[in-house]
């Protein structure tokens, strides 16, 4: 490969003044999370707030499962954005394709770890899943496809997509050259290699889309097919899962792109048109999701069973009301911000309204995932048990905090050794000549 003349920076994360303190803080959080998990492992699930349904008046799925769904949701938007960029040739979004792929891989790894944290006996659970899972069960689709097939497919996607940049960076003598050469695996940027890569990316995108829709729908079916659990049994569960996944994931991509733009000074490559496209996608997804929420609410209020309405009453005016209305307020404020951003000329030149909307929809998504998982267990009893309650213990908060810290660390670590924004190719504005 010939030498490279570049007018843009390599987009490899550089350790600034804030980088090391942030990493130190994240390592502390991760350490606390590991300590909490080890305590859970030695003392059992008693250290969590999780209890049996019914007689113990608790919830067997709590904060961990909430975050499994949240992480898988983020991964959905990551890989679907990456696939759509290739399939629909949305060139404006091309600079964030690697961030989207990385978001998917990291979130799926975090989802897998969160499931492990939720299992009292992790090894037994993992082995038995691979040994006994039944094809009829949504768990089969969810955990075999999401955690295994989907993660593997995303890793293949990320790996193949990064080969060219790894080769370019290795040829430039960048740090971690051995790693970069191993990643490049002999890539030399010839025309046949480029053609092959384009073709492989296209078919990978085609193959990944049905896989991810199936995987996310089955995750919705885990809840939506449970006829004996008021609040879960709904035909809208799967599509609503997919829509909220899209909303939160796009919001997260906007946040990540804004951070990369600011910290790596990439105002030219991560420009306003790209944010505008992401913002419009997020706005449309958010409107569709709010429509689903409204439809489900009205259907259950008018025609739901008594127990169905009990769960709904708890959400609208009971113990969970503050969380429910906070989530709805978050979504509505985010939608209003996006409308203002689209309508007001002065706002359109700023990114902050999109970032604020991204943060709001992500907080709302976490709350909504919690509200999907928990109230139906504590309030949705068909047998004559008293209503229960669930409050996560510090162990659960610490484990989730540790996992979030791990996710950010993985992202920062990757950005430190590899271009987080794809290097420009011939013909791009970046004028790379190879």
């Amino acid at each position, binding site marked *: 490969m010939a030498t490279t003349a570049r007018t843009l920076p390599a987009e490899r994360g550089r350790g600034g003044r804030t980088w090391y303190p942030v990493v130190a803080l994240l390592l502390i959080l991760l350490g606390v999370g590991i300590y909490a998990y080890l305590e859970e492992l030695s003392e059992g699930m008693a250290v969590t707030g999780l209890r049996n349904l019914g007689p113990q008046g608790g919830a067997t799925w709590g904060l961990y499962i909430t975050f499994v769904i949240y992480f898988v949701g983020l991964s959905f938007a990551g890989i679907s954005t990456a696939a759509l960029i290739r399939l629909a040739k949305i060139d404006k979004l091309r600079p964030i394709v690697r961030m989207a792929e990385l978001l998917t891989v990291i979130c799926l790894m975090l989802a897998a770890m969160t499931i492990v944290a939720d299992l009292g006996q992790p090894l037994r659970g993992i082995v038995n*899943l*691979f*040994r*006994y*899972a*039944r*094809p*009829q069960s949504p768990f*089969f689709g969810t955990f*075999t*496809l999401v955690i*295994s*097939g989907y993660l*593997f*497919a995303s890793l*293949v996607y990320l*790996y*193949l997509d990064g*080969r060219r940049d790894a080769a370019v960076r290795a040829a430039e003598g960048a740090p971690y050259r051995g790693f970069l050469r191993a990643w490049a*695996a*002999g890539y030399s940027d*010839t*025309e*046949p*290699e480029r053609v*092959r*890569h384009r*073709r*492989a990316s296209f*078919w*990978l995108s085609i*193959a990944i889309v049905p*896989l991810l829709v199936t995987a996310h729908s089955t995750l919705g079916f885990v809840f939506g097919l449970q006829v004996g659990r008021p609040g879960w049994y709904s035909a809208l569960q799967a599509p609503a899962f997919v829509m909220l996944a899209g909303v939160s994931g796009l919001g997260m991509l906007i946040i990540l792109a804004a951070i990369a733009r600011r910290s790596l000074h990439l105002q030219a490559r991560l420009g306003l048109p790209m944010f505008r496209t992401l913002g419009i996608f997020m706005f449309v997804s958010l409107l569709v999701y709010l429509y689903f929420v409204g439809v489900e609410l009205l259907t259950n209020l008018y025609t739901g069973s008594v127990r169905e309405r009990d769960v709904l009453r708890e959400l609208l005016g009971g113990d969970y009301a503050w969380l429910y209305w906070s989530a709805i307020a978050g979504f509505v404020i985010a939608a209003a911000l996006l409308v203002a951003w689209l309508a007001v000329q002065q706002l359109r030149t700023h990114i902050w309204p999109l970032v604020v909307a991204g943060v709001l929809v992500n907080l709302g998504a976490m709350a909504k995932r919690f509200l999907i998982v928990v109230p139906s267990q504590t309030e949705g009893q068909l047998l004559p048990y008293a209503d229960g309650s669930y409050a996560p213990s510090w162990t659960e908060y610490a484990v989730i905090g540790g996992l979030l810290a791990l996710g950010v660390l993985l992202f920062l670590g990757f950005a430190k050794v590899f271009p987080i924004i794809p290097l420009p190719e011939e013909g791009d504005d970046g004028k790379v000549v190879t």
Partner: protein
Amino acid sequence: MNVRRFIVWAMVIIGFGLQAVAYLALAAPLGKPTDVSFSEPRVPFAPLLFILGVGIVFSAAIVYELLPDRPEDRTASEP
């Protein structure tokens, strides 16, 4: 058909075939459970075989890109 395409197509067919066989014939029987046999996979670790099938299909993309060119192809692509 060159060697690259042959290997890739073979991997895709084997991968999808393994998924289908694992799902339909090796895992627990599909349909309304009538006895205990519906709770057990017909072959232990059938779900793992299904995942292996998914893995083989997607690995075909790596093989497609990484398999070195034949010398005559490489010569033809040089400027």
